[in-house]
């Protein structure tokens, strides 16, 4: 059945004030935009037919995403640029796609393939400074594992596994830094970079708070251990 369908992969976003959408709201907004754009989307068979689309790893409410991926199946081939333009007209700017390309039918799903998230966490407040925040983060990483209680469940992250790259801290203004965090999702779930940074701050007694979290990129880890973009 999938053979006669065309799997178009889009790089969209959940930017600006629309970062406050939940994953469900974000996916509905995309689907409604796709219907407005009148692209020839496929419809699932069955009792309640709906648009055939699949989304990459979800972002929490409030976290911005600059490169979020969506696969949508089309009933016929349409040039990727044409779909891109139509969706650009039919979606709010904060969600609109910036890139599109066809993906092979056999490729694993976005949800399974995209295991790497590249984040920026902005921290502001009282004694926030580059060296202080760096030291606080080093202490946490030095501990090796990080245990999080969430909704009554305990998650334990092996930080060497969950953080495939070293974190970097940049000063971006008076009492303001940006922490670059790259995470790897594993069996134990995905580590929330803002929680990790907040944990480091409170552990070190630093007065400051996370004010904005942005996922800059969502990547696929290849068998060779390198990272690549899904399109």
């Amino acid at each position, binding site marked *: 059945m999938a053979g006669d369908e065309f799997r178009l992969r889009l790089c969209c976003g959940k930017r600006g004030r*629309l970062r*406050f959408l*939940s994953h*469900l*709201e974000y996916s509905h907004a995309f689907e409604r935009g*796709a*219907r*407005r754009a009148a692209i020839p989307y496929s419809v699932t068979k069955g009792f309640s037919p709906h648009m055939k689309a699949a989304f990459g790893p979800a972002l929490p409410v*409030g976290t911005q995403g600059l490169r979020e991926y969506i696969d949508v199946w089309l009933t016929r081939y349409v040039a990727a640029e044409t779909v891109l333009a139509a969706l650009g007209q039919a979606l709010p700017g904060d969600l609109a796609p910036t890139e599109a390309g066809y993906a092979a039918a056999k490729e694993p799903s976005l949800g399974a393939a995209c295991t790497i998230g590249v984040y920026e966490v902005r921290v502001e407040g009282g004694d926030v400074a580059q060296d202080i925040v760096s030291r606080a983060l080093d202490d946490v990483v030095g501990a090796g594992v990080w245990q999080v209680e969430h909704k009554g469940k305990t998650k334990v992250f092996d930080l060497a596994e969950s953080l495939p790259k070293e974190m970097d801290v940049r000063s971006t203004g008076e009492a303001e830094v940006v922490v670059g965090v790259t995470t790897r999702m594993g069996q134990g779930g995905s580590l929330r970079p803002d929680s990790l940074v907040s944990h480091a701050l409170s552990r070190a007694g630093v007065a400051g708070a996370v004010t904005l979290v942005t996922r800059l990129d969502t990547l696929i880890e290849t068998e060779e251990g390198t990272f690549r973009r899904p399109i």
Partner: protein
Amino acid sequence: MSSVWERVEPLLGTVERPARYLNSEWNAVHKDATEYRVALMYPDAYEIGMANQAIAILYERLNAIPGVSAERVFVPWVDMIERMRSAAVGLFTLESSVLVRDVDLLGITLPYELTYTNILEALDLAGLPVRADQRDETHPLVVGGGPCVFNPEPVAPFFDAFLIGEGEQAVAEIVSAHREALAGGLSRPDTLARIACIDGVYVPSLHEPGSAGRGVRVTKRVVDDMDACRGPLCPVVPYMDVVHDRVAVEVLRGCTRGCRFCQAGMVYRPVRERSADTVVRDVLEGLRCTGYDEVSLTSLSTTDHSQLEEVLRRLTRRLEGTGVTVSLPSLRADAFGVEMARLVAGAGRKSGLTLAPEAGTQRLRDVINKNVTEEDLLSAVESAFRSGWRRVKLYFMLGLPTETDDDVRGIGDLTAKVLRAARDVTPADQRGSVRVAVSVSTLVPKAHTPFQWQGQIPREEIERRQAVLRESMPRKGVDLSWHDADVSLLEAVLARSGREAADGIEAAWRAGARFDAWTERFDLAVWREAFSSAGMDIDAMAHRSYEREDVLPWGHITSGVAEDYLWAEYERALAGEATPDCSFEACTGCGVCGPAGLGVDMVLGGERRGR
């Protein structure tokens, strides 16, 4: 006028469902050049208010006026209210995040009595005095509209004016009169006197309660041609899940079946159908510009539309293969033929099957003028279950005039028959999934209905009849649910009281009542205490009856249906005599149509059949 968005945004990280406050939804209107700003408020949370058609219609119409911008306002959820109060951020409009206290006109729809405390909460959060007599020229004009304004008295002290009836045409007149008053520098009382001259506008400060003869008399506004008043074609598409999350196309207005408990059926007369062509056109247009995958054909009685079959057939053809479904808000037993069942099933079987016999015996159905026989009901159930439905929901009411315990037990008997009929036509291997949901509420007598003179039955009596009903219900295959009797009691108080009730409402709000329509937040004890502190007994008020010669608190507001007609209907009810539907048979003389009435007439697209 500046946006407060920068002060709102930092609050959003820690509140539930921030999508309520984002604005920037698809089709939201942002006008730059604005000389006159209207805030349109629905007095409940975003996800409830976004389903409201009146707000959507007025939003589109007001924004079409040059120099005027209309923006939406909903009541922030309690967590956001707290954040806003501690950050000293006032209630703001969604589109441009301006403070509500800075707009020119605040229009509030009154959808339901239990939203009244939310109105006070919103006014207060906006930084406005809740009482109109405390407000002046520096404050927006606060105008109410919607279903509850047919008895505006309980909330009259909080409003500068009300618009009674349909707003499509009247809102532009109010706005233009207010703009002139502002340009002329008129005082608040002079402005109100001018606005009071507009047909359908009621200014409570110009009316002395209880003086039907000496005070003003206000007749509702009514639109004469529904095809000329197109609904909102491109309504705002919310991000968050809201109730009725779909395109809604109004197919007709008014219902003259004449159920004697039903306020909507009395106050929205006469029946005006939209033609099949405009309905089909608006459905397709609405789907195109919203991207929804569902459309609902709305009205008080969609299956009565004389061209409904044609509409459904055309839509089924046009929407084939798109995954878009068509739903009807409720399916009526008597008009729900086999053909209709097949068409709706073909267009996507999303509609739940709900039937409202309301009473358990034919005698009592005649009293309330619910012209549905047991055979109608059972054959509708059979045809639906033959077409694949496996669930049906039945609505009943307790506390109807002349009701006896036999009538109450009749509800259980009828339910048992429905269950049996449904099972009989269902293939044996699927019988296990057949369910009948039974929802029972207590009659809330409403203003402008034949039951307006009658009080609600006392609280203990409600409980006793509920026990009788529970005994009579089949044990298996039935899900029985109750509309909370405490809620019905308060509804009864607020629906038929006079201006004195405003003190009780304000006291309840000051004692913390808000979002009363949300079951988990409703507490009758707070209301009982508040009313008693204002010198009133809530139970006695719910139970109070009026005499024929009494001046009713809402006597100065007319829907066009003559009070004599309502009284005659009341007497026919007590005598158990039914009155036919004038859209199927001859005029029954309610007084709405023609030059002697409101100057409008019934509009049908074809002949109505199926009775």
